């Protein structure tokens, strides 16, 4: 059987190789996706140490539980980033809950500054992604940014931007649908 070049493997066979305890395969997955995983965790947490811990956790989980990846439901990248995002948000909300216990008025305050959108915007998003995001109206872009990069629930977003919860919920959904089309238009296709 000919040797397999890991760098040419798609997601499913790469994860299968990880399931066979191939450290080289895990290293290849790390080479492909660690930048995105670490970058997302750092953007959300604003803490390098925590971001590194989340990155480590995400790849060790892939090593220990490769069967959790279902190639039929999406790319390895989105699978890893979904876990990264979920764990990062968990940390933020745990911290938020702690602050709530200490100060009933402090829950949103540390992250509520009106410049958060601008901060997020300036955090070196790839130009093509900025371009795709900029084609969304502000009413759809802001909720997505605040929820995804800020780690807020849609109810918190509604409070932050002074819109009804139902409106925010709908605009996140419609914005993501438009973004899919827009990302395709700037050359970033989803699988």
């Amino acid at each position, binding site marked *: *059987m000919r040797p*397999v070049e890991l760098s040419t493997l798609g997601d*499913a*066979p790469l994860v*299968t190789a990880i*399931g*066979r*305890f191939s*450290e080289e395969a*895990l290293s290849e997955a*790390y080479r492909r996706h*660690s*930048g*995105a*995983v*670490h*970058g*997302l965790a750092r*953007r959300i947490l604003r803490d390098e140490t925590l971001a*590194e811990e989340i*990155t*480590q956790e995400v790849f*060790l989980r892939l*090593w*220990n539980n*490769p*069967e*959790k990846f*279902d190639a*039929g*439901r*999406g*790319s390895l*990248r*989105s699978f890893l*980033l979904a876990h990264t*995002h*979920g764990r990062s*948000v968990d940390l933020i909300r745990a911290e938020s809950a702690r602050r709530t216990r200490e100060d009933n008025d402090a829950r949103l305050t540390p992250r509520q500054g009106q410049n958060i959108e601008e901060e997020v915007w300036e955090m070196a*998003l*790839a130009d093509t*992604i900025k371009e795709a*995001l900029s084609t969304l109206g502000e009413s759809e872009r802001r909720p*997505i940014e605040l*929820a*995804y990069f800020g780690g*807020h*629930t*849609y109810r918190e*977003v509604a409070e932050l931007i002074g819109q009804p919860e*139902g409106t*925010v*919920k*709908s605009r*996140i*959904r419609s914005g*993501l*649908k438009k973004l899919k089309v827009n*990302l395709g238009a700037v050359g970033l296709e*989803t699988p």
Partner: protein
Amino acid sequence: MMLDSNHLDIEELLGAYALDAVDDRERALVDQHLLECEPCRVETDGHREVVALLSADLEPAPGRVWERIAGALETPARQSLPDNVVPLRREWRTISVRAFNWTAGVAAAVVLAMGAVAITQSSQIGELNDQLAAQEQEISSLALALETDPLEQAVTVALDNPSAQIATLTAEGASGAMLIVVLPDGTGYVYENTLEQLPDDLTYQLWAVIDEKVISAGVLGNRPDIVPFHIDPDGLQALVITQEVYGGVPQSEGDPVVAWFDA
């Protein structure tokens, strides 16, 4: 706000759900709904792909992170298995006689409680011939080359093997079943599963009763799809699925969810 758990309400939540922007109760509602609703599952997966693109590779993670990961990897002793077989995630563990007595007791109770355990046995175990092994290797290679799922290919080959044994693990009152195919060399696959998805902190675990010893045959995850395993087919008396804590357990104290017993 009261949330009606009908389709339209859930559908409206899918964008926020994909961004982890829902509360725990809403997440549980959507999780449950997605088990049953293919269109919503497809939409959610699509949202996740879109947001994944927002996380551009800005810079590589620091090298020390990989060093820590590499230092934390646990690799069990490798087994001599065909290339298309994923070895067990954990080394086999022969559990105690006490544990077996417990399991045997539960197994007997299950038989009594269920009245009957459905058994489907398509054919008898025979010897795996060299030609089939070569074909499996070739299919695995082709699958890799075509970037298709080699596990699906392996299951297809296994099901076509006239010497394979197919077991339906079920129980009276259980809301689903699990189908397993075992080749004569002990290579097996969970290939169809209609048991309910478990929460993330739980997992299904497969146990083989072989010569009156209970052996963990694999931790299957909370929503098993195709999962390979390997057992010693000689002396196989039963296959049992239990529900365990995330990561699995060396010996189980839980009730079987579904089971198959050799006739």
